[in-house]
């Protein structure tokens, strides 16, 4: 597909001359490759694309994308990207973050960006560990996690990033797996098409400090653990598609046989977030399967558009700002 300038871009165009410095085997390589392959599909010129990151292993991402980019400060990428997106609605803005960056030090910025529905995409690389600081537990690490900073096990109950995003009024929430290029591309495509904040959690393996954290879905060739969510389709999975999800009257979700009545049909566009939230509670530990794909995808007024609209209305009502008139407003008097 050709971009804004009529150029046909390929994955190669999005590579930079910088040496990629993640550890061998890091899931970030797969995400970067998938992203570079996917970007040409958007047809957006490289100069109109910006990647903004915070701090952490994932935050190196902008250095490897041949677009505009900023590697900023810990947790603040959503705030920085907010200023960029609201002043430059012509740009395609992507935030790359990690579980520590987005959910710990930057938690406040994440939830407020999502509720405002700023027009940018947030990719959260979740490896359930602090990698760059060499192996302390993160806000998504499981309870009791033994790390360098928690020799007797962590005491914190972890965040479920999907539940958190839905609770923060996000209009688009999805999940992908680093090694699943096809699935990830599908979610990224839907996120890119979504106008407003799109939040995508990407399960990412850290081979050094938390290897195999997602092995149950990462290396799931038979599809026994991945529950692929497709809008408008019954939610089934298993080696032969024999398992399914069903919603109980109290809203919770249980596993049933695909042949049974009442199999849940996925509706990511439902106005109410209850179904998406209920699905976010389906986990390997509780249900023996892990949903991936788009949980929620609804339309809501976008902050940047609303702000631009207010500027238009003000100018229409009062005329284009006249500085001389503004300075002379209020009561004035002349000294001769």
């Amino acid at each position: 597909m050709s971009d804004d300038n009529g150029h046909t871009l390929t994955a190669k165009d999005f590579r930079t001359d910088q040496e990629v410095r993640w550890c061998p085997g890091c899931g970030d390589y797969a995400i970067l490759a998938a992203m570079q392959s996917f970007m040409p599909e958007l047809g957006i010129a490289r100069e109109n694309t910006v990647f903004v990151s915070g701090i952490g292993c994932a935050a190196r991402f902008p250095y490897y994308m041949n677009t505009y980019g900023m590697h900023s400060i810990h947790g603040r990428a959503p705030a920085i990207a907010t200023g960029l997106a609201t002043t430059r609605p012509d740009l395609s803005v992507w935030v790359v973050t990690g579980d520590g960056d987005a959910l710990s030090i930057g938690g406040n910025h994440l939830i407020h960006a999502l509720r405002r529905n700023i027009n940018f995409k947030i990719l959260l690389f979740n490896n359930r560990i602090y990698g760059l600081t060499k192996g302390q537990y993160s806000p998504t690490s499981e309870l009791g996690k033994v790390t360098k900073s928690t020799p007797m096990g962590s005491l914190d109950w972890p965040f479920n990033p999907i539940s958190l995003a839905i609770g923060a009024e996000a209009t688009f929430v999805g999940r992908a797996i680093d090694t699943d290029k096809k699935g990830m591309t599908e979610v990224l495509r839907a996120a890119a098409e979504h106008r407003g904040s799109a939040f995508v959690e990407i399960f990412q393996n850290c081979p050094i400090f938390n290897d195999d954290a997602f092995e149950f879905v990462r290396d799931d060739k038979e599809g026994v653990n991945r529950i692929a969510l497709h809008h408008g389709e019954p939610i089934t999975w298993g080696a032969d598609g024999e398992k399914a999800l069903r919603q109980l009257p109290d809203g919770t979700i249980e596993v049933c046989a695909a042949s049974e009545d009442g199999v849940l049909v996925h509706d990511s566009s439902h106005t109410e977030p209850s179904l998406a939230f209920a699905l976010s509670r389906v986990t390997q530990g509780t249900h023996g399967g892990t949903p991936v794909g788009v949980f929620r995808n609804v339309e809501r007024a976008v902050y940047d558009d609303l702000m631009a609209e207010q500027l238009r209305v003000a100018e229409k009502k009062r005329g284009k700002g006249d500085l001389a008139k503004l300075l002379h407003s209020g009561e004035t008097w002349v000294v001769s």
Partner: protein
Amino acid sequence: MGIKPVEQLSQVIVRFAGDSGDGMQLTGSQFTSEAALLGNDISTLPDFPAEIRAPAGSLPGVSGFQLHFADHDILTPGDAPNVLVAMNPAALKTNLADLPKGGTLIVDADAFTDRNLQKAGYAQSPLEDGSLDEYQLHPVPLTTLTVGALKDVEGVTPREAERSKNMFSLGLMSWLYGRSIDPTIAFLEEKFAAKRPEIYQANVKALQAGYAFGETTESFAVTYEVKPAKLTPGRYRNITGNQALSLGLVASSRLSGLPLFLGAYPITPASSILEELADYKEFGVRTFQAEDEIAAAGAAVGAAFGGALAITTSAGPGVVLKAETVGLAIMLELPLVICDIQRAGPSTGMPTKPEQGDLLMVLYGRNSESPVPVVAARSPSDCFDAAIEACRIALKYRTPVYLLSDAYLANGSEPWLLPELETLPDLTPTFATEPNAGDEFLPYLRDEQTLARPWAVPGTPGLEHRIGGLEKADRTGNISYDPDNHDLMTRLRAQKVAGIASDIPELEVDDPDGDAKVLVLGWGGTYGPVAAAARRVRERGKPVAHAHLRHLNPLPRNTGDVLRRYEKVLVPEMNLGQLLQLVRAQFLVDAAGYNQVRGVPLRAAELADAIEALVDSE
């Protein structure tokens, strides 16, 4: 009636004091308008509690507004009032100490009830126990007279009638000082006539009744006249510091051709800048009320990356949270103006009270070697020019710049000689549009003169680049851990800021006869009191020089020469000696400090005595 003798005065200082809900700020600002329109020079000092509505009649709930108006140019709102209008016992109690013996005291006699006296801690009424004998006391039943005057106004509740007593007092004061109440009537009309016609009527009637009361009562034997001041010819308006600062930012947006983006989180005394700018949307101004101070600054950096004129505003407790982002902006070398409307601290401190305690914080309160230019406004109207200067430096040198104001400048007001637009500087930045090294674009290849790096905004084809908080390699901007490179970049960042000294005016010294041996060196918001004190000392026949810093980093290039020219240097500050420490360290000058941190502007009279003592000690 109306033929009472008129006494000429060259200046008057009036203070209105009452409950937070009594409308003292409105009364004061309207009296200010009347004085300004008459052509007096004016200077005002609102003084209000942080509590929005402390319990009625209580001491913490007292709100005040001081106005100094004169027939000559004045520099401060005045140390002590000549006239105190106290609307209740609490207002009397908290303000009486400032009123010199013999001063005029007008009180609402109706408010001196047992309950109110008790709340203010008076065992017996000061109106009756002779404790006010040394003042010219005028107990006026303001409430009764106001309610009486409004008995025929339909649709006004007794409570609303009572609340109009501030307009009655304004009418009385307007009569006493020969001011027309027409501007206030016009103001009330605009504010209430359409929405609440009965309230408009009530206020106007109360205002007129107060004026008429002055004419008829025997309590006041004379009226006073303060003639217009001889000010520089031109068109004026009365302006507060925060208004002027906001206008300066909008003007900078126009002068640079860049859209203005403000990231802010509400905080006293900076919030009114956010509110003011939020109302200038037709100028393309985007205001973003962020989730916190950090996000406010962060969003501004994002906007700067995109090519906007990026501003963040706050006060000390918020500025301290922005330090991390300022560090990033230093590393990114992007323009950003951080406005610190200083208030008394540390921590929450005294939110509505001024201080100059943040100087060393904005200069040094960041990790590592992280130089930032600092500009400080000297008076309410000067906030306009200071804002433009801060934007100029930020845009030209691609650097964060701190703009310092304070709670006194923010809320205080003075006449502002409106500038001619063509006299304002052109701030248009040059964006990078093409590769700067053959076919390559090097984001950290500097301008030889300014050492500023190119500003290439997203959307510019061929200049895609990545920047970040990690140390940059010289020229390319790539990540670098090279020891020599870090040493070079650290020095380059310092040189860039230091080099601004060649692009700012030299420090001017006010030494009318050129024979002073003592220099008073001030900075920022103390300009009024310091200049007024120097004037007083000279009036006593003693020479003194005064210099006032607008640029705190870098300092004007002749600062050292100026300091060494005098035998003694006194540095008055509303902190415990922050500029003092700088000049002593940097210039090895044995300067002395004059320091007060009382949460109120320096008093010119006290400072004059201190200066005189130093002059005499030679």
